[in-house]
């Protein structure tokens, strides 16, 4: 199992477009992937579920944790991290 912690930096948090990009990426792995909003001590939810992710209410500056377990767990976490860094934390110009 691989786990990372991440702080969401962009102003609008994790919803709409970023959330659905995240779900699409997560869905492309065989591993079970879970996510929680540690800032509000949420439960772990399925990272492949847009409804669950929206329900986490991730706002800017919130800390999230992601864990993956399965044959492609390392790759999954690496790429999800890269996606968060690239898309979600993209600073407004």
């Amino acid at each position, binding site marked *: 199992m691989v786990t990372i912690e991440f702080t969401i930096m962009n*102003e609008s948090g994790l919803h709409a*477009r970023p959330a659905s990009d995240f779900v699409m990426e997560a869905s492309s792995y065989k591993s079970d992937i879970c996510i929680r909003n540690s800032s509000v001590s949420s439960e772990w939810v399925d990272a*492949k579920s*847009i409804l669950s992710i929206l329900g986490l*209410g991730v706002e800017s500056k919130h800390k999230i944790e992601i864990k993956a377990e399965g044959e492609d767990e390392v790759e999954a976490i690496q790429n999800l991290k890269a996606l968060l860094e690239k898309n*979600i934390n993209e600073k407004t110009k």
Partner: protein
Amino acid sequence: MQKVKGKIRLSGLAGAPGLAYGKAHHFRPVEDVTISRSSNNDPVKEQSRMDDAVRAARAEIAMIKEKVAHDANASEAHIFDAHLTFLNDPALIKRVSNAIGQGLNAEAAWSDAINLFVEQLEKLNDPILRTRATDVSDVGQRVLNHLMGRSNAIDLEPDEPVVLVAEDLSPSVTASLDKKAVLAFCTALGSATSHASILAKALGIPAVVGLGEQLLSLQEGQLVLVDGYNGRVVLEPDEAELEAFLKRKDTDRELAMMDRSNAFLPAVSMDGYRIEVAANIGSVADARDAVESGADGIGLLRTEFLYLNESNLPREEEQMRVYAEIAAVVGDLPVVVRTLDIGGDKSVPYLGTRNEVNPFLGWRAIRMISERPDILLSQFRSLLRGFAGSRLHIMLPMVSSVDELEEARAIFDAAREQLKTEKLVFAQDVKFGIMVEVPSTAILADHFAKQVDFFSIGTNDLTQYTLAVDRTNQRVAHISSPFHPAVLKLIKMTIDAAHRNGRWVGLCGEMAGDPLAIPILLGMGLDEFSMTPASIPSAKRIIRNYSKAECQKFAEEALRFEKTELVKAYLSSKFQCM
């Protein structure tokens, strides 16, 4: 409610044009029907019922989405994309099948799971996330209806089409209305710019909205006349009125056919003045509609659609690609683009909008530039590049003082300099103008005219700001009218000031397509009328029926009255309203 000789008249807002006569049918969005709940069911059977219902709902939504994308515009279609994603959600599916596996019936399993997500979303702090709750319950209801053997196509007799009466209609319900079963719809709530009205226009269903709660007390099956042009509804009309109405309806149908065949001919007044009749658009699909409706140009390209539903400022290349697509559709026709017009009524965090007590008097539109010149700079650059080969006109929204214009102009010049240095291809000979929608700008029109190439009068906002009235507020909406003598006077002042300085003037509010307004605007000397594409053919016909000289007299006369009602009464007596 105004009672005249036994007839009842209701007046609301024109939602979508057209005339209809038929029996009223109340549509109530599924009341809280008790959902059956039983245990010890056969899981295999229940799961297969569940799967069938989801599949049917998915097919329905996909159809609606296609219809909306084709008939209305892309931004309305997005709503249904989200609905489709929800249906595929693994957490939702899992929760439902677990419950079914334990013997719960499909209805209860489904509605429990949906309610859980809806409640979760409703509890969140973020207002945007909270609005998703409505979408989730909309989808949930659709599936539930399938499970319970209720049609989502609204229970109507196809043999006897009806006038649908409702408190309000959701986008998903409006989009699935069948023109053969629904002659028109009337709603107690809603405005001319709500989803329901926009979709009704696109679907060609006449609609009157904002009729107030009293609408809901009318009886099932009562005969009603619906006038979607003027936003009026008459209950139980007498014979004379009905006959006149049906005659008007026939003429309306014939006219519409004639209008369509003449749409591509220019609008030339009887005394030989060629008037531009242009389109208001807000997407690539709209641009196609505009061209197909015979528009002489695009009089207003709203650009907000590029910024809403985004989480970051759209990249220059992204913006440019959309502009280039529109440029390809409109070809040689002139295009007037309005720069970003967003404020605190919409939440777009990356732009820095905030919840404001008074968003329409707040930090919005051109007022963003001193804090965020980068937004305007990137928009100018993408416009100049995307419309490189077009007859591009750029205008600034909500200008209220000359410094704003000067500041924006400096950014515009900077954008051009940058593109030149970077050796990029961009539009040359671009015309620069402003919207006249704040009274101060109309009053100082002479000063502004010296610094711009053209004006475009935005009558919706000009009316709101001149009369200090919010037309979406049901209690005061009746005060709001572009026919208020003060608004008419400001329009006249603006046109005169522009012409004194050799500039042209367009008008891009709803007023431009209003048959009562067209003759007097023509008389005041308006050079360009810009409206929703569907109104173009009829507006062209109206212009062809008048001479500018006679309209000048009508305009002078109309400007003499001191009350909105008197102006309207005068105009109605002069121009048969169709």
